[in-house]
């Protein structure tokens, strides 16, 4: 019997494979351009700098953000969230967040709480959803920010970002959104949703490599109000030993992951050609098939909304008599299916969903997962449930 081909269902951790052209763009950069973007005056540095500018524009096109110079690149969404939270919040400030956040939001917030920032965690429903009516009563005189995840990395539940953004805007608050699970998979219009600080990662549904991501700083945010996370060389105002105040340099010290950005630019370009709406429709179809198939298996509990229109392509479940780690191990060993099990760096979400501390098994199909593979995953779970 031939070994079954790998079935990668961990796209929520990182997307794989990437679309055609992404790896090629990175190899081309390494082999033909290679230089440090912009800092040296020569043609290779200029070519690299043009590529980075193009990547900023690609990000803007995807999110309808008006100004590429307000796209700050960094290592990932965790760094972007750290920049936004540590950059903005002072002791005595109040911030509102939700009970479905990933630790990239919660750990900085809990640390800032110990340093004197007041924190309100809005309780989401057991399916992960947030009632926007909870937001207004939580606002205090010293509230400065609403910080929320767009969709859960555990159960995929979409949170009402635009509605919360409207409330934030009405009350003169800034809104920070973690788009790790949604950028590239769900249409996002930054100005229309009143997002002031948009944190994104490059290596999930944006189809770039690991080591890319950033923060888009909206028009309402005065860059001087955000303290940089890092200071250092920016290739500008080099006669001074003070960090420049203009964007993007204020928040981009050191050499960017240029080869990574070549890949990210190619990934976003591929998405823009196809359209996020079309991508979302295709993912919804696969997600609903997966949810329906799993729900048809006795002894399997699917968490979250179980409605592909209300979530991303991220399906968490548990099985009677089988712990998530046992199930995950068997899926890989016996069925060649790769998943992530446990708490997914989101203990708050699992508490909300009722799956703490055991966690769950997470199936995260991607755009390149076929319907036949969805069927194969369901069949594997069915045979384990017997």
């Amino acid at each position, binding site marked *: 019997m031939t070994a079954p081909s790998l079935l990668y269902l961990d796209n929520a951790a990182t997307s794989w494979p990437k679309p055609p052209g992404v790896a090629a763009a990175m190899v081309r950069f390494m082999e033909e351009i290679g230089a440090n973007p*912009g*800092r040296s005056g020569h043609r290779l540095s200029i070519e690299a*700098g043009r590529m*980075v*500018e193009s990547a900023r524009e690609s990000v803007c096109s995807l999110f309808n953000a008006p100004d590429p*110079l307000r796209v700050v690149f960094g290592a990932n969404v965790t760094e972007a969230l750290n920049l936004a939270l540590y950059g903005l919040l002072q002791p005595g400030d109040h911030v509102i967040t939700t009970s479905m956040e990933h630790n990239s939001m919660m750990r900085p917030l809990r640390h800032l709480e110990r340093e004197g920032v007041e924190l309100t965690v809005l309780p989401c429903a057991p399916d992960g959803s947030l009632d926007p009516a909870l937001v207004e009563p939580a606002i205090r005189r010293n509230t400065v920010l609403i910080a929320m995840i767009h969709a859960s990395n555990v159960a995929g539940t979409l949170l009402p970002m635009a509605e919360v953004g409207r409330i934030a805007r009405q009350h003169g608050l800034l809104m920070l959104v973690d788009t790790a699970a949604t950028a590239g998979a769900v249409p996002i219009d930054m100005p229309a949703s009143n997002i002031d600080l948009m944190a994104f990662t490059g290596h999930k549904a944006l189809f770039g490599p690991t080591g890319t991501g950033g923060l888009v700083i909206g028009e309402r945010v005065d860059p001087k109000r955000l303290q940089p996370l890092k200071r250092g060389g920016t290739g*500008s105002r080099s006669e001074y030993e003070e960090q420049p105040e*203009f964007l993007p340099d204020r928040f981009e010290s050191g050499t960017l992951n240029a080869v990574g950005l070549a890949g990210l630019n190619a990934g976003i370009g591929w998405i823009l050609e196809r359209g996020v709406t079309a991508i979302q429709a295709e993912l919804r179809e696969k997600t609903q098939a997966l949810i329906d198939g799993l729900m048809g298996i006795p002894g399997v509990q699917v968490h979250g909304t179980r409605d592909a229109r209300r979530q991303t392509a991220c399906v968490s479940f548990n099985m009677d008599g089988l712990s998530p780690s046992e199930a995950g191990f068997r899926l890989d060993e016996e069925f060649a299916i790769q998943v992530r099990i446990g708490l997914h760096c989101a203990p708050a979400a699992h508490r909300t969903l009722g799956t703490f501390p055991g966690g769950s098994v997470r199936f995260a199909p991607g755009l390149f997962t076929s319907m036949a593979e969805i069927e194969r995953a369901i069949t594997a779970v069915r045979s384990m449930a017997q």
Partner: protein
Amino acid sequence: MTANELSVLIFYTSNHAFRAEKLLKQAELACKLVPVPRHLGSECGVCLRLETATVESALALLKTGRVEIDRVEAYG
């Protein structure tokens, strides 16, 4: 004043220069990224060289595009 008289737009950062090049090229205004001439400053990176006759149009485009410039200098 000859038709080929050149000027450079000097920016606070090369990031702004790349953005500016994109905007001017989209408007079909000829320009070239060149190293900042030594006598014009110790800036790292690049500035944008263009015909002096087109500087005013370029500045208008950059103002609309919200790209800050440091100053304009004669080139050479």
